[in-house]
């Protein structure tokens, strides 16, 4: 399982953003996890909660938005949710799809304590 590696990258990214914003600590982390990102959200949360000790995220709560897989058909321009892992346009049956969401993991936003 690579959830721990992903959490290491996540905490690195959070630390950079916290430093840029002169934050003392992070109280909330919002991530978006694509259903086809290859990450198990439950394990990601466990990994985050054990790895955050001693980091700037020590008191942070992790909120996960689970993102459906969304594609756009390049032929008929329709947007739709991919269901049952079938990558064919339900409207015109084309294979010419652009997946626009649901395959990646994003750090969306942070709630920071900037102190006085």
């Amino acid at each position, binding site marked *: 399982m690579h959830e721990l*590696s*992903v959490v290491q990258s996540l905490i690195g*990214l959070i630390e950079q953003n916290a430093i840029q914003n002169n934050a003392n600590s992070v*109280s909330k982390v919002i991530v978006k996890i694509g259903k086809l*990102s290859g*990450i198990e959200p439950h394990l990601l949360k466990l990994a985050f909660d054990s790895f955050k000790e001693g980091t700037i995220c020590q008191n942070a709560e992790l909120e996960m938005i689970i993102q459906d897989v969304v594609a756009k058909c390049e032929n008929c321009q329709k947007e739709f949710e991919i269901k049952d*892992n079938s*990558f064919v346009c339900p409207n015109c049956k084309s294979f010419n799809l652009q997946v626009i969401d649901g395959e990646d993991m994003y750090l969306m*936003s942070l709630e920071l304590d*900037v102190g006085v």
Partner: protein
Amino acid sequence: MCKDCGCSITDNHSHHHEEHHHHHNHGNPTLEDKKTVEVITKILDANDKQAESNRKHFDEHGVFAVNLMSSPGAGKTALLEKTIEMLNDELKIGVIEGDLETNRDAERIKQKGAPAYQITTGQACHLDAFMVHDGIHHMPLEELDIVFVENVGNLVCPASYDIGTHLNVVLLSVPEGDDKPAKYPVMFRSADLLLITKVDLIDYFDFNIEKAIEETRKLNPKVDVMIISTKDENSLKNWIDFIKMKSSLRKVRT
């Protein structure tokens, strides 16, 4: 080593940093102690940037780079041994090996006369772009035409990491069963080429080749497929031709 090639990660990183980040202060102006910052950056952003830098390395040397992925025992190393043998010095191959433990795979490749570098990942179940970058610096790129990266045997984790190669090849061996594409959609979606391997064993297993291809193409309609056995050189002809063709297309300069 990294200074030599100007590909220092930290440079690269801070470089692209700003353009991807959009900061908005939603804080209460009278109480400046909480601040919400919008980030919207891929969690594996640093890896993806390193992957781009790896690809540039390969491109600068006209080297075609392939990421080989499969479960353990699907025949990645055997395929490489046979490929080196069949190319017979017509194209120069280097191999970056990823394994949790031991350097046995690298030793097998070296026996065939090709340079190989072993990355032992310890507990990590995949290679990331940083590990491959380390491997690249142990490859004599100027002498090579193709670099194969043999990823850690695993149908889950390697699929999430861009390591900076040009092509993802996923092996599925007959003994594993034809249900694997449906069970590991992220991996089989990432494939540019699917190799169904160990087809010499087809009579001993209930493996339906048509079903395996159909299920892979449902996930990944554009994937190419070859059916091979390293025990039968005829079955590898297409693979060797394909590798030669792809390598030549990477040497075209504008």
